[in-house]
């Protein structure tokens, strides 16, 4: 049986900055057309993993390959499209010059920029200097620069920050078209619920280790938490005394309570405060799952029937299912 060649493979990646361990043995595989979201708190190792994948850093241990090639080699890096949140543009250049320049740097003719500018709705802005663009337009320019070389792997760092809802939807539609043509996407983001909506797989990193790898639905389904939202007269002390409270929060005058036994909690809550109103119970989302993971409270992994494609060497990895 023929197997598809992975676009990105990382095996046993370890990296340290002096005494600080950034990656402690990470395996990762991204297949053609797949969208993988890298999630985790600041300092989890996401940036280091991405820097290794795009050839900005050399692995101290382990290997990373793009379509079987070493990303430290320029010929391999031409298969990548990268959009980084922190990129600024030389204000003296126009949109058209930036995108056609990216095409030339990727080994194509400058005219390769024309269809991409059109696809991203930038044709009318092609002669405008980048200094005069809004934040959202700059994001589109950067995506155009990443897409113009028809990359096998798109690496996106917080790609939708600064985009409004419509622009965000348009952005993911463009990526969906590219993914249908086989382009793989590796995205790092803090917008967890957004990644839940668009990613095929979510890889949660913390302290340089992979804590979880699976589809967003898999990760969420392994977390039994429910969130109860309610308006109540109970004070903080009274809320903390309710049975099964995992976390408490307040949003717009409402109390949010995370629990694994909402029935028990609600029985006692209604007994102690008959005035409760605006009561709502919902399943945990991906955000709660990731927070639970990275707080060290849970170990959420892929189901036994779905073999892992990302693996860390931590004791907190996904060898078992929900703790």
């Amino acid at each position, binding site marked *: 049986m023929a197997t598809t060649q992975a676009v990105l493979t990382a095996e046993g990646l370890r990296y340290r900055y002096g005494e600080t361990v950034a990656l402690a043995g990470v395996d990762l595989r991204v297949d053609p057309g797949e969208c993988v979201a890298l999630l985790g708190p600041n300092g989890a190792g996401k940036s280091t993993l991405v820097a290794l994948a795009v050839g900005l850093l050399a692995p101290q241990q382990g290997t990373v390959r793009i379509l079987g090639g070493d990303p430290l080699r320029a010929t391999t890096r031409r298969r990548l499209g*990268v959009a980084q949140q922190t990129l*600024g543009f030389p204000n*003296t250049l126009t949109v058209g010059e930036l995108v*056609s320049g990216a095409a030339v*740097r990727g080994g194509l003719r400058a005219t390769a920029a024309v269809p991409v500018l059109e696809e991203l709705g930038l044709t009318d802005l092609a002669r405008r200097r980048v200094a005069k663009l809004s934040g959202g337009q700059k994001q589109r320019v950067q995506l155009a620069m990443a897409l113009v*070389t028809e990359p096998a792997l798109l690496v996106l760092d917080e790609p939708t920050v600064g985009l409004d809802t419509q622009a965000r939807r348009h952005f993911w539609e463009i990526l969906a078209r590219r993914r249908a043509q086989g382009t793989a996407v590796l995205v790092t983001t803090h917008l967890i619920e957004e990644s839940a909506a668009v990613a095929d797989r979510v890889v949660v990193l913390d302290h340089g280790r992979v804590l979880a790898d699976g589809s967003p639905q898999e990760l969420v389904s392994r977390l039994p938490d429910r969130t109860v939202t309610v308006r109540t007269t109970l004070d903080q002390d009274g809320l903390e005394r309710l049975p099964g409270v995992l976390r408490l929060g307040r949003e717009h005058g409402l109390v949010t309570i995370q629990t694994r036994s909402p029935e028990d909690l609600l029985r006692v809550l209604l007994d102690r405060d008959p005035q409760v109103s605006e009561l709502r119970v919902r399943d945990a989302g991906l955000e709660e799952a990731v927070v639970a993971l990275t707080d060290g409270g849970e170990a959420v992994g892929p189901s036994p029937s779905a073999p892992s494609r990302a693996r860390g060497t931590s004791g907190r990895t996904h060898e078992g299912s929900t703790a």
Partner: protein
Amino acid sequence: MNMMMGRVFRAELRDELRSIVREPTSLFFGVLMPVGIFVLFNLLYGHDAVQGLSAGTAMVATFGTYGVITVASLQPGIGVAQDRDLGWLRMKRVSAVPIWISLTAKATAALLYGVGVLVLMGAAAAAFGTLHASPWALLRVALVLLLGSVPFTLFSVAVGFRFRTGAASALLNAVLFPLAVLSGLWMPIRLLPSVVRDIAEFLPTYHLAQLGLAQLGQGTSLLHVLALVVTTVVAAGVAAASYRHARI
């Protein structure tokens, strides 16, 4: 350089030249100031004679040195610092552009800019009737000054890899001004105090200006060539070390 790298180099060079032409402050400091000072001194002293050479002609070498090293010292270094600050150098690295292509494009753009400065100075001196040298001698002066600007470009790049844009700009300007004064680029070195003349012999700008004057028949070349070769080797080492330690 293969065909693809050639195309990338041309694209990089085009971007650099656009950045220079579209940035009014760089035009002011890189062209208007050196050419303006040249015009002023040429009008005042251009017809004087200095050791058998008209002052206006000698100024093409001395002010030409100032003009060329101004662009060679400021443009590449500030450009590298800006590119680093923007993450642009990192983007180029990811997009498989070898660093030497980017740097060569910056240096070439500065050289072309320097050619423009020299042409304007030569044209001004000719218009004032103070230019008395053969086209071949003037061409030699231009080639010497452009080639001799390499160590200044290397030093500039070293600064660009170590400092942020504002600091790099301030440092390069702070170094450039005293170098110009102490090397006799603005007034004949023989008119300066002896202590300045003693200091000048240790400055690469002095040797470059003297090498330019030698092409016009004033003085010899060998010592100045040696001094500039040594400076180039040292500047290359500093630039390489600076790149190795740079955060890109």
